[in-house]
């Protein structure tokens, strides 16, 4: 089983990213569950979503305690939240950042999802959309296939800019 924890702020699309990831995994012929942890959060508050992907049906409902991967859609949550908490040794991190970041003991890749969203004019109510670009980054990491990523995005969004943004993230993510 592969377990992913997504950190974001309410309204940034972390929950939708989790859903898209689960949909793409399903297209890959796998089982997946996605669940946000619902607290008393409001728009703008730090939130976490969990995605589990496996070859067998998933029976777990409790929160992910030791993720294989952490996705940080908004680096400002790191001021108050320990995004590395429980991350497995050598675990992977995808971080929405224009600059390279280092976390000793972990494998960190950065990609400027916000920049991509602004460039592709993926902005809703003044906020750049991060949930579709990040799916491209996850495909690059081999969590899902690129074909399934695109299929999932097109199922949920008719605007092709979402697929273009995912493509851009796929190409631009750091090594």
């Amino acid at each position, binding site marked *: 089983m592969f377990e992913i924890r997504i950190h974001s702020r309410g309204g940034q699309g972390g929950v939708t990213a989790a859903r898209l990831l*689960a949909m793409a995994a399903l297209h890959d012929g796998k089982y997946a569950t996605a*669940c946000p942890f*619902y607290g008393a959060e409001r728009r703008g508050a730090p939130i976490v979503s969990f995605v589990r992907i496996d070859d067998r049906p998933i*029976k*777990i409902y*409790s929160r992910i*305690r030791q993720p294989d991967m952490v996705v940080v859609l908004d680096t400002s949550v790191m001021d108050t939240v320990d995004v590395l908490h429980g991350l497995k040794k050598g675990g992977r991190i995808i971080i929405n950042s224009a600059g390279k970041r280092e976390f000793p003991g972990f494998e960190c890749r950065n990609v400027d999802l916000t920049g991509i969203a602004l460039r592709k004019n993926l902005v809703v109510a003044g906020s750049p959309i991060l949930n579709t670009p990040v799916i491209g980054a996850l495909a690059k990491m081999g969590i899902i296939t690129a074909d399934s990523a695109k299929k999932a995005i097109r199922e949920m969004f008719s605007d092709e800019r979402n697929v273009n943004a995912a493509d851009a993230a796929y190409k631009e993510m750091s090594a």
Partner: protein
Amino acid sequence: MKKIATGNKAVAEAVKQATPGVVAAYPITPQTEIVEQIAEFVSGGLMPTRYIAVESEHSAMAACIGASITGVRTFTATSSHGLLYMHEMTNWAAGARLPIVMANVNRSLGPGWNIWAEHTDALQERDTGWLQIYVSTVQETYDAILMAFRIAEHNDVLLPVMVNLDGFLLSHIMQPVDTVELGDFIPAIYLPHAIDPKHPAGYGPLTGPDQHFKFRWEIERSMRDSVKVIEQTEKEFAERFGRKYGFTEDYRCDDADVIVIALGTLGKEAEVAVDILRNEGVKAGSMRIRWLRPFPKLELKGKDVVVIDRDYSFGFGGIVANEIKAKTGISLYSVIAGIGGQEVTYDDIAGFVRTRRMGEEFWFGVNTHV
């Protein structure tokens, strides 16, 4: 067709396919997504249904009763305080022999204010004459709603059915769900005692001391008859759509020395705990109770039984544990865990089994042992 859906969306999708004539409902967290989705289906012309937006849950059930007595298929959904606000009307629905189907998203009761999963809401309704089922996956939620209409409306039953799904844990989780081509799986509704709205007439509702007990017995007789209707319905569902269910879901129970019993998502997570215990050489099994009313026949003699209650009856004990004790006469280990959405992991469940003390009660997270 396989897709990813939440438990709430799966309820709405199944209700859409069952095409009730009337849905009357009031939104409440964490059920809201169900009624929003159904309202969207109705307003978008995807359901030939009259959606009645009411001012309270008491009115929601009253409207369902009014619609159902004309012989029309009816559905509602609620949670927690909403369910208990209906309580007078839930008794009426069963007493009037109306096959209303309701989704209840299990949520704790305040105060303190808490919107997370607990079963005490539905368990406070267990003496009303409603059939009750507790589900554990998005797929099972969808399937149970479809079967609930057929079971409720079967003329050997004619009692309302409550489908219970855990708040957030199941109502908001996204899992794969395979939807079906329903065909004629749910036959057209026929209510033998329906009132014709074109020629409206009721019958004397006063039943004296020489009659009332007969009506109550009729409820119980139908509750007993519902056992075979449930079995037949689940059998035909399996034949048509390939998914098999029963009164309980038994996992590695055959040669088990110790059996974990729970409702809902805890009962599914318990299977992971069982695998861990088996690897340690403990002969563990899991028995997830699905139908609580009618109460299933349980074969537990000679086993150590650990019951996890996500509920409580103050001054008495865990409700499910005590129902099992009353029906089987066994001694068991009663664990109170998951109250108000308290996090309970498969490791915690394995721990309950390892440290079990038969005949005792244990509140998870509380240091005092009773």
